[in-house]
């Protein structure tokens, strides 16, 4: 661990969002009042579909957009009215936004230069960061002479060289190809472990969210759907939206009706026992469905062999049901599937609000 790591770890500050809201025209709210606490040193991924307000939220944290209401605090300091440079946060942009006319060194050193840091100190800091990111041999190059991954690293270097209290990433991996994205994900996770900066990472990619985050904040139309650890979000989704958004293939959701004893599909087939009345949505993950000899009948329509496992698409009373079978499982060739839905793996959601009904299957 070198000086930079220590300094960043020490500077890391919690982010408190208190009734933060954003509206561009004063009537439609892009982000209705929103509360969240991002802990110091934590890697928070803000996840959501495009247009959910996640970039706006990040820009408000960065100071590139004004808040329409509420307060943002870094540690004990309220920052919502401060300029970006006064907030002590740094940002990595989706297209990196490197200065094409400056060398890698100057790109990384620019913020220090603007801050008026003396040259010897500047050189020392930039070199330390460059070494950490494997950019030392590239310092004299221009961004145009770098590969995508190298540019990405320069953008990260430019962000961390200032030892920011808060490090922001705006979909930084979406411009990379699949292989590089995977590598950069690993590098980012490693970097975070080393420097421990409070990190906010915006993405629409659930894999990035699941692999990088300490906690995931799932945003839908500006509202927080769920803010929890990847594990909890995966296994205990708080809403249909979260359940459908996380997992590949996503959780199966079928509309059911409860009669106080069992849940039935529209065609009358019994799905599970549950003492509720009325319309609900029943969820089960594709990998939680057991094949062979179960009470639930479905017709196989399509199968995708992915090597490590096979995805089956079946028709369950007019709903598409996806089933992920483990490697080597005997699927057979018949068109009629007999399935088991283990009660412990079922999720019940309110049909209207989409929120989870807690404890529905825990008898």
């Amino acid at each position: 661990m070198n000086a930079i790591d220590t300094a960043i770890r020490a500077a890391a500050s919690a982010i408190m969002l208190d009734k933060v809201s954003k509206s561009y025209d004063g009537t439609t709210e892009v982000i209705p009042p929103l509360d969240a606490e991002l802990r110091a040193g934590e890697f928070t991924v803000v996840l959501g579909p495009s247009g959910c307000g996640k970039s706006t939220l990040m820009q408000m944290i960065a100071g590139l957009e004004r808040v329409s209401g509420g307060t943002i605090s870094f540690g004990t300091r309220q920052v919502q009215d401060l300029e970006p440079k006064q907030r002590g946060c740094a940002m990595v942009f989706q297209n990196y936004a490197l200065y094409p006319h400056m060398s890698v060194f100057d790109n990384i050193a620019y913020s220090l230069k603007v801050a008026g840091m003396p040259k010897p100190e500047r050189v020392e800091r930039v070199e330390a960061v460059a070494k950490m990111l494997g950019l030392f041999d590239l310092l004299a190059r221009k961004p145009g002479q770098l590969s995508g991954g190298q540019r990405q690293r320069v953008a990260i270097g430019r962000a961390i060289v200032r030892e920011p209290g808060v490090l922001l990433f705006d979909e930084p991996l979406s411009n990379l190809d699949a292989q590089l994205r995977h590598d950069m994900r690993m590098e980012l996770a490693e970097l975070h472990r080393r420097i421990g900066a409070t990190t906010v990472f915006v993405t629409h990619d659930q894999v990035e969210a699941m692999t990088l985050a300490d906690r995931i904040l799932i945003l839908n139309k500006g509202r927080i759907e769920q803010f929890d650890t990847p594990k909890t979000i995966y296994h205990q989704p708080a809403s249909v939206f979260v359940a459908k958004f996380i997992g590949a293939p996503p959780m199966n959701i079928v509309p059911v009706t409860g009669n106080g004893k069992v849940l039935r599909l529209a065609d009358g087939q019994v799905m599970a026992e549950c003492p509720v009345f009325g319309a609900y949505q029943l969820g089960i993950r594709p990998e939680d469905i057991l094949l062979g000899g179960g009470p639930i009948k479905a017709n196989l329509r399509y199968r995708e062999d992915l090597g490590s496992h096979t995805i089956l698409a079946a028709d369950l009373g007019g709903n598409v049901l996806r089933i992920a079978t483990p490697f080597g499982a005997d699927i057979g060739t018949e068109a009629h599937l007999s399935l088991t839905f283990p009660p412990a793996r079922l999720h019940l959601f309110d049909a209207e609000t989409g929120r989870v009904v807690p404890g529905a299957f825990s008898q």
Partner: protein
Amino acid sequence: MSSPTQALFANRWLPVLLVTPLALLIVIFFYVPIFQAFYWSFFLERPFGGGSIFVGWANFARVLSDPQFWEAGKRTVIFMVIGSSLAVLVPLILAVAADRQLRLSQPARNVLVWPKGVAGASIGVIFAFIFNPFAGILSPLNQWFPGIWAPGIDGTDAFIMLIAAHVWSGIPFNFVILLAGLQSLPRTMHQAAAMDGAGAWRRIFDVQLPLIMPQVFLTLVLEFTESVTSAFALVDTMTKGGPGGSTNLLVYKIYVDGFNGYDLSGAATQTAILMVFVVLLTGAQFAFLGRRINYER
């Protein structure tokens, strides 16, 4: 390699047909006269036509030993350097302001383009009136300090007037080019610089200007070459080269020598020299400036 432009035209004669009118215009009204000028510069031409004598380099020797030619050349260079620099600098300032979404920048963008539609000679007439020492906007100056603004008598004043008109006429085109350059910069570039702590002024010099150097260079090259030739209309309408030859630029001198003085050979020779000068100048600009601003976005 099949480029998309090749695939665009199925008929191979269509592109030729489309290019022909423009090519003809350029050849007939540019290359032929220029070639003629070079050709005539080696002949002694009769003022009213009818026979000419090959004289080799004699015309060049005569022109180059004429102090008036050098005077006009010097004035042309001064006009070119000051006029072109200002004709790029002023639109640059306006473009940066318009790009910053300041109040009224939207209408300003339109208004600033209008002079593009005004012919050089009209600009000359208008500016001659604007700068008229008795009736123009600077005439009050003369009331307080008699004789301070006298473009009809003072050569420097006349030169300033000429440059002002030239800069004004250059604003629209250069403004459009520079503004387009500024607006092509990605928004995140500004945001990144803002995150790096650079204020609006600092961003102009550290980020915006270096990144629109290709556009600045383009306008500068065009201005340099254009200021040499297009000043004619201004000189002709505003000063007629006066007072005392103080605004007699080379391009105007050529006209007067050729069509008033009937020294056709001398005019052709000066045209040839001017042409070579412009070509060399442009080449030098590309060689020295162009290399320094090449970078990959």
